[in-house]
């Protein structure tokens, strides 16, 4: 067997497929797309005979590096600023990975091509690999990094924290709703093909620059599986494109998937790369530069645009708008500032920025200091408890933002905030594209066409609402973000582990209560709501209150 060529072996395993003769399978997952049977080829021709030893060899390298890192005392050189953000990232990412595994069966009965099912099954087990290898990395960090808090309660934190929830939609979008929207367009065509470049290639490079070579070891090993998954998506997309009736849905789904991925992934990875690093060499790429290279050039221009000739309507406007958000409107900076504002409800420590950081930001993003410098100086000033409240509750020219009902990142580019009344609730959205996703795309009809299989956005999507009126100490206790002395917070707005300098529940007890912007908005009269909106869109940048009217 071992002497057979891969092509011949792959051709042989196609004989395994069979059409049912006696019982017709009924798909448990619906789609509004239609597919004709077509013999689309699995371009990677993966056979398990070679797949398992290949993955085992990749494992040898990963686990060898892990041993080496521990024996070589890697953690004596790891930047705490960086590792702290990994508490968030590694709490999120195992769920999207395992959800990608769970998504594969959504395609079995909706995409009538057994050759692709073979590739999807391999993707399924790849994703089990990714999820557990990432959990293992987190376990290693917990055991060997100076501060295990935040790693040690990771999966509880992730499930009840407002940042974790933002990341969770990245996972749930793969496994529910219209099978093709979820498992093909959102997962493989956009999330994997576009955004794993920044997730699994750009971010590990930054980890290495911060003394952590295990994250690159694990994530490059993960990324080496992604090319197979991208091929799965591409083959399905071509099948979908061959039926003109699908073009309208493809246009819808690409718009939703692109914008949601941009909102969620750029928020998180942009923050890690820009604000989690100590590497301030001016010739290292900023997140914007990485984005331009990996996503705009490599994905948009090289992968997506050539599909236009097959009838795919590409959301050029949203792609340009994403760049506009990142480059001109400071999307990543606004998100990082918000995460730092809300440090007290997190489960990691956020290091203040220093003059060296300021210099780098100003060099990469001219005008940065005028917008964000004063706020970060206040953050540093207020980082050690000294009779004051956490920065979110002090007067630092920052208006706590409303939350976007769709992407659940707050409405941080204030001028773009829009509102809509849906199901009797006044909702806020960070951008018109997010309003469209909720009120137009995720509906049972789309542009007059019945879309009975389209999913729904559900859940309690504003975290603050659950804790409306609560004392902050009770909020943090309820979520379980307290260290083993029963009072010191897991989260801290600095990296000093001297217990005397760490914030405790006692510090939070004296703070004013948490108020949900959405609850307050819905208590207003229509005129008040209109005025609220008019004021909101005049706020910013950097969360500044609207200037006083002339």
């Amino acid at each position, binding site marked *: 067997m071992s002497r057979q060529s891969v092509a011949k072996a792959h051709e042989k395993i196609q004989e395994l497929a069979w059409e049912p003769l*006696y019982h017709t*399978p009924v798909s448990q997952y619906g789609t509004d797309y239609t597919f004709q049977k077509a013999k689309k080829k699995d371009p990677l021709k993966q*056979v398990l005979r070679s797949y398992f030893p290949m993955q085992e060899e990749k494992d040898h390298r990963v686990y060898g590096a892990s041993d080496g890192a521990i024996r070589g005392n890697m953690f004596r050189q790891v930047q705490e600023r960086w590792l702290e953000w990994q508490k968030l990232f590694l709490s999120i990412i195992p769920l999207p990975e395992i959800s990608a595994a769970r998504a594969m069966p959504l395609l079995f009965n909706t995409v009538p091509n057994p050759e692709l099912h073979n590739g999807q099954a391999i993707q399924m087990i790849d994703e*089990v690999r990714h999820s557990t290898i990432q959990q293992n990395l987190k376990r290693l960090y917990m055991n060997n990094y100076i501060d295990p808090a935040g790693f040690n309660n990771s999966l509880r934190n992730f499930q009840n924290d407002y940042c974790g929830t933002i990341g969770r939609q990245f996972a749930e979008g793969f496994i529910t709703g219209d099978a093709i929207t979820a498992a093909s367009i959102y997962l493989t065509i956009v999330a994997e093909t576009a955004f794993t470049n920044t997730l699994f290639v750009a971010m590990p490079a930054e980890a290495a620059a911060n003394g952590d070579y295990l994250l690159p070891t694990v994530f490059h090993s993960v990324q080496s599986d992604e090319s197979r998954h991208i091929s799965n998506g591409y083959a399905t997309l071509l099948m979908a494109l061959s039926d003109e009736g699908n073009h309208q849905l493809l246009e819808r789904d690409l718009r939703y998937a692109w914008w949601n991925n941009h909102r969620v992934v750029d928020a998180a990875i942009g923050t890690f790369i820009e604000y989690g690093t100590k590497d301030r060499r001016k010739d290292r790429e900023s997140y914007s530069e990485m984005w331009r290279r990996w996503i705009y050039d490599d994905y948009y221009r090289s992968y997506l645009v050539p599909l236009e000739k097959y009838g795919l309507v590409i959301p050029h406007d949203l792609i340009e708008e994403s760049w506009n958000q990142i480059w001109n409107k400071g999307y990543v900076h606004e998100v990082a500032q918000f995460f730092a504002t809300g440090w007290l409800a997190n489960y990691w420590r956020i290091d203040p920025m220093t003059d060296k950081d300021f210099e780098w930001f100003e060099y990469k993003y001219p005008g940065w200091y005028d917008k964000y410098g004063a706020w970060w100086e206040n953050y540093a000033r207020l980082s050690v408890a000294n009779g004051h409240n956490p920065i979110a509750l002090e007067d630092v020219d920052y208006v706590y933002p409303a939350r976007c009902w769709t992407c659940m990142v707050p409405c941080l580019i204030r001028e773009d905030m829009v509102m809509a009344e849906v199901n009797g609730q006044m909702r806020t959205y960070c951008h018109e594209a997010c309003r469209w996703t909720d009120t137009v795309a995720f509906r049972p009809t789309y542009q007059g066409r019945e879309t009975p299989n389209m999913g729904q956005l*559900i859940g309690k999507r504003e975290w603050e609402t659950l804790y409306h009126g609560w004392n902050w100490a009770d909020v943090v206790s309820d979520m379980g973000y307290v260290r083993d002395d029963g009072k010191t917070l897991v989260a801290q707005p600095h990296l000093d582990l001297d217990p005397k300098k760490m914030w405790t529940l006692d510090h939070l007890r004296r703070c004013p209560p948490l108020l949900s912007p959405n609850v307050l908005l819905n208590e207003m009269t229509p005129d008040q709501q209109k005025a609220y909106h008019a004021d909101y869109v005049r706020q910013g940048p950097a969360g500044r209150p609207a200037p006083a009217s002339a």
Partner: protein
Amino acid sequence: MTATVEPRSAQRSAPQPMFTDAEAGAKEFPDSAARNFNYFTPQKRKQSHYEDVTVEVQPDPRHYLSQGWLYGFSDGRGGYPLDWTVLKAWGVDRPEPERFPGSGGKGYDWPAHGWHEFRDPNEEWELTLYRYNANVVRQINQNVDSARETKAFEQWNRNWVTFVERNIGAWMHVEHGLGLYVFANAQRRAPTNMHNNAISVNSMHRIRFAQDLALYNLTLSEEIADFDGAAHIETWNSDPAWQGVRRVAEQLTVIDDWAEAVFAVNVVFEPLVGELFRSHLVQHASPGNGDYVTPTLVGAGEHDYAERDLRYTKAMFSLLTNDKEFADHNTAILDQWLSTWTTRCITAARELQPLWSQPDAKPPRFEDGLDRAKNRFSAILAELNLQTPKELTQ
């Protein structure tokens, strides 16, 4: 010795290593020694590596998932609905915690319900599954290579060649169909990550075994003159002896309830049909017909099932038949499933009987093999506290 001095190139830009002393134990502070995942209770005294990388990755609105599922199907149901099986684990009838303005985010104490108590006794995660399957394919490759080099296939008589090309060939379709459309499908549907990971590993065992058989078939086409590498397709499509197996395999792929699918395959179909064919026919008939190679491939599939897939299945269903709240409910349903699937599988098994007379060197009698398969099946049921169904006497 003359040294050539190269002009010093421009200094490369590289991050500077820094001593940060950020290793465990460098300081003492609250939580500095708290180096265990603290959000679940381990099955044994200490948390296992397997538990650490598996438990709680799939959230549950009944304990920690405070904002609920965020994306739903068109009917508004999201995540992993517990009623995707009719079986129940203790605690599931309690309503999901209600969330409203000011409700807070607390759910029930972990685990909230009995589904979370399941642990795969094989402790499968990525490291174990690749190590295991890589070893299997390596061993199979070596066995087949060595057989080819020693001209082992020349010892086969014509009838045995026909037997292998048709019947071993037909079995690959069973493995492939069940691996892909029963197990890969079911791993979307169970309520915890521990269930779904175990099921997905089961899926890969079957798909790998199917491919092992297909590639073996290819080797035989290359090594044995007149070996018909396509005979398995015709056999699977129209040989009357195989249509019972095919019928039941297709029925298994259309089961909606994920637990019924796993139960029907691993508790009923496998002992009554799978092991009957593999152990009591192929493994017994091969040596007498000069074939020592086929048993090594089929033995790998036997080992997948008997030592690993059945093992997790028993752990999964034992919890349910011993559940502190729903043992009777579950047992009644499992009895119904047993009744349904035993009838179907015994019918399929009996239709295979003509295969026993095909080889020149005959295996033990079909009825003897079936009796042993039935005994094995009854023993599995006994371990699960289930009664042998009356349909077994067919």
